[in-house]
């Protein structure tokens, strides 16, 4: 007899709302009420229009922002009860873009990802060095270790950012538009690597993506944000329907099937 065991999600948000303060005391309301549950080891893509609050949601999950209403929990505890440093040991953010200070070698930049774990006053422990090595290897950036940031191409820098996030050895990896500046080959390479790592390290991954088809191919679960709340949450074939795309993005698309049976959404320019 199998017993269904309810497993606590790694992280979740309940009724979370957030607005950015504007000059003059007003607020720009971005999220109105978001309920999201992240089971451990899951892989999910968040999509939505510009300004729908995708980045804000990631920041709330990372504990960098405090919600105006509702709760964010990690590991069963509200984020407010977590020490910043302890959370940083478990949650890593791969930002849309990052200013890399000139003069550091890539290996040293990746080592900054060890900051939340740092134990020794002036040096780095063996565990730190191994984590850095592993992160560089997993991010396919080993050959970049001795290079300086300003010598790298866009794709190479992206790999460095991935390595920096992986060096934190997180349980939850939050990626904000990681494919934004990459060509198709690099997009595929990056997302494949993330899927591989998710399987290998048991990572929980949340990726904000703008390309609906890529998101559908990459993640088994899609969350659509619209008007500050979750408009749909589920497998791509159920969520990314032409009706939803029309409603959320205001664009008419046609559903197509490829020869191998994969679904594909095509923009209907002439329709």
């Amino acid at each position, binding site marked *: 007899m199998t017993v269904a065991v309810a497993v606590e999600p790694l992280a979740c948000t309940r009724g979370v709302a957030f607005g950015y*303060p504007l000059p003059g005391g007003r607020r720009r309301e971005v999220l109105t009420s978001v309920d999201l549950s992240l089971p451990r080891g899951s892989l999910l893509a968040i999509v939505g229009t510009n300004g729908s609050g995708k980045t804000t949601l990631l*920041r709330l999950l*990372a504990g*960098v922002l405090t919600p105006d209403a509702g709760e964010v929990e990690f590991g069963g505890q509200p984020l407010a009860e977590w020490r*910043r*440093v*302890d*959370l*940083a*040991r478990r*949650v*890593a*953010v791969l*930002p849309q*873009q*990052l*200013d*890399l*200070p*000139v*003069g*550091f070698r890539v*290996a*040293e930049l990746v080592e*900054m*990802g060890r*900051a*939340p774990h*740092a134990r020794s*006053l*002036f*040096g*780095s422990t063996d565990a730190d*060095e*191994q984590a*850095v*090595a*592993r992160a*560089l*290897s997993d991010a396919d950036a*080993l050959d970049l*270790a*001795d290079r300086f*940031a*300003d010598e*790298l191409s*866009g794709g190479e*820098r*992206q790999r*460095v*950012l991935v390595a920096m996030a992986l060096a*934190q050895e997180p349980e939850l990896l939050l990626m904000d538009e990681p494919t934004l500046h990459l060509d198709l080959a690099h997009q595929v390479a990056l997302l494949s690597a993330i899927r591989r790592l998710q399987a290998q390290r048991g990572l929980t991954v949340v990726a904000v993506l703008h390309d609906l088809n890529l998101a559908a191919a990459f993640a088994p679960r899609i969350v659509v944000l619209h008007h500050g709340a979750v408009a749909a949450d589920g497998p791509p074939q159920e969520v990314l329907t032409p009706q939803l795309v029309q409603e959320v993005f205001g664009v008419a698309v046609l559903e197509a099937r490829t020869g191998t049976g994969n679904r594909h959404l095509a923009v209907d320019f002439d329709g």
Partner: protein
Amino acid sequence: MRAAAAAAPIIARRPLGRGGLALGIGAMLLVAALMAAVAAGSVGVGIGETAAILGRRLLGLPIPRTWPLSAETIIVELRLPRVLTAMLVGGGLAMAGTVFQALLRNPMADPYIIGTAAGASLGAITGLLAPILLPALAIGAGTVWLGLGAVQVLAFAGGLGTVLLVYSIARQGGQVPVVTLLLTGYAVSSILAAGVALLMFLSGRALGAIFGWLMGSLAGATWPGLAFSAPILAVSFGLLLLRWRRLNVLLLGDTAAAHLGIDVEREKLTLTVLATLGTSAAVAISGTIGFVGLVVPHVLRLAVGPDHRLLLPASVLYGAALLTLADLGARLAGGIPVGIVTALIGAPFFLWLLRRSRAVRPVITA
């Protein structure tokens, strides 16, 4: 995993090679500067005599006194405190400059940028002028408090108080954005500088003394002054050196630093207070000496890299050595303001270094 294990030696820390050498040279340079500066001055005291005096007074060695008392006074009461003050002030200003350049992510930042100089100047000049403008306050001329006169106490308080004021003005909704801090510092400094200018206009005879203070000088170095500022600077050094990792991470930006577990606002405040304590303690005993705090961090960053684990101690060592040697030069040149010497030595060297180095953009956006 095998690949990672093979990679470990490649990534293993190497900075002790190049950086350690730089620190070693810096320490030797500092010791040499110390010896040269104590042994030389506008009055000639032989090297042997100098060593004997120091041995007898500092180490308590039973050396018979074969030198005139005036030589002993010169070495122990005039030169030694002056040289030690130069070391402390040079190291303190260089360290504060390094911290502010990282904190504000601005290559033009110096220790005075968010108001320390303006506040300390206003305090010091008030102290200089009060006995003249209000003769009833002339008692202040000789009063000593914690080893300092009124001028030094007001300078210290003015520097520290102004930065705290700027910080609280720049705070918006619990956050202090870096650009706001910079601009607020600039605005408040301008207001205080106008006050300074007004006082200078009213100063009459004391204008020379005021000008001398503004240019900065180590001529007024005393043991009591050192006793006040040295502990503050030492604490500032120690606590800031320990924060090298956080300074590195702050270079990634406030958001990324927060993602890496740093309480960014608290860290900015802590760094500001520690660096300002050191700067104010330095300015209180030497006036506003410029150039050291801005250029030494830049030169060292070009030489040893931006990693603060090396950059901070290197700044202290080379800043101390530079100011000690510059003060020696200033003394030998007839007592000119030390700021002139640091600029004349340092600026051309910095330009040369700049031309030889890679581009000086502080960040690349990835």
